[in-house]
């Protein structure tokens, strides 16, 4: 019975139990920092970019089970993707990759998308300053 009606899918619970890519990246190429304490979810996403490809992604998250699982999932999804491809990752895609989220937790996937976008923006801003390309 638990399984049918439990708050979270098995996939969410699996990522929650064993989150991938926890931690920081030293000298990251981009950092995304989103969320706020009022809502109870804060995400930090770090990316390492090489030749327009995200070669590493890590996160630190304060938040509920869904926040941790979406953080973990989004870092898995972006690794190996180009910046353009990464920008295509929607919150729905993250949620779907986790076999869905309960409606009241969909905002966590939004947060994950925003964290990623924010990290990429940070990377682009830095790139521009270093006079590199970034669309």
């Amino acid at each position, binding site marked *: 019975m638990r399984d049918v009606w439990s708050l979270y899918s098995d996939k969410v619970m699996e990522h929650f139990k064993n989150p991938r890519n*926890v931690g920081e990246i030293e000298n990251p190429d981009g950092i995304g920092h989103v969320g706020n*304490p009022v809502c109870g979810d804060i995400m930090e996403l770090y990316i390492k970019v090489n030749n327009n490809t995200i070669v590493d992604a890590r996160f630190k998250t*304060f938040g509920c089970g869904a926040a941790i699982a979406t953080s973990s999932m989004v870092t898995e999804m972006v690794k190996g993707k180009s910046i353009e491809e990464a920008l295509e990752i929607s919150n729905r895609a993250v949620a779907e990759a986790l076999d869905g989220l309960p409606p*009241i937790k969909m905002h966590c996937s939004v947060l994950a998308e925003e964290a990623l976008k924010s990290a990429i923006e940070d990377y682009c801003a830095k790139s521009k300053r270093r006079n590199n390309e970034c669309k």
Partner: protein
Amino acid sequence: MKRIYLDYAATTPIHSEVVKAMLPYFTEAFGNPSSIHSYGQEAKGSIEEARVKVADLIGARSEELVFTSGGTEADNFAIKGIAFANESKGNHIITSSVEHHAVIETCQFLERRGFRVTYLPVDEYGLVDLDDVKKAITDKTTLISVMHASNEMGTIEPIAEIGRIAKEAEIYFHTDAVQTVGHIPVDVNKLGVDLLSMSAHKLYGPKGVGALYIRKGTKLTPFIHGGEQERRRRASTENVPGIVGFGKAAELAQHEMGEEVKRLTYLRDQLIKGLLERIDHTRLNGHPLKRLPNNINISADFVEGESMLLNLDLEGICASTGSACSSSSLEASHVLLALGLSHEQAHGSLRFSLGKWTTEEEIERVLDVLPRVVAKLRAMSPLLKSHR
């Protein structure tokens, strides 16, 4: 894995003797108490016996008790009932900022319908200040409603003292005693309350049944209209098995309370002490002494409550973030914020509530597991870093 249930404040398992007492009323003795024939009169008799037992538990007379569908209905009934019935006198209600949602949202409903509500602040332990109560009273005040003890942080409010203030000012006084009835001594006369809410499923009785104590002479508009039941104060065919179960639960609670208070207070203090020792950056929420014998509420800095809960659940430990009702909400507990906690701290709270089947081994296990859970979550917390 044997699960460890430490969420008795959310709901309790039913005592096996309570189930036994209820069963006949599902089958042979299924009558509608309003019916004149023998099935009906049998059912009627059983609810009157239960009424006496519940009344005894709170030092009331049985005629002063109305059965409801739970604590929430009792709160709605008391507050809307007084507000509507006494509208010609005034439209002002005083309550606290740490009430259960059943009280807060009922007050908000009344505010939308033209009533004025004062939400009293509390101190860092969650206590209402008596001077604040006195100052809040106006000549339009018809009701003061302050809970007996907090379901979240366990603080026991100075109800008898507020009762004296209310009496002197001739204002009706209601208390939500859902967390105290059956757990600590409750006497409507010593507390000086005119109305008191209870719920059976918090004292090893069934869900879906509660009661409102209404002091004789109290002017109250019915909440559920439509029939002669409960002396015309609450219509609807009575939940006979539920009421019988509530009666039995009340009877058992009266016998067992004395011992349980001692046993649980000991276990509670073991758990509090152990957690504060083993996990740094942790605080106890609520009053250290004026506190329910079964309630432990802590905030562990840098980590969020639901993620602690889920990790505990994976280890077979069932706890809560404070109020079961708001566990699906994004907002931090209004109660913890009222104590002055930051949003991070309020989001990082955890409630353990103990009960009849809680053992010392279970406490030990929490003391073993929770520090590991907190350490794991802190390792992925962006707050800890910024704190360093």
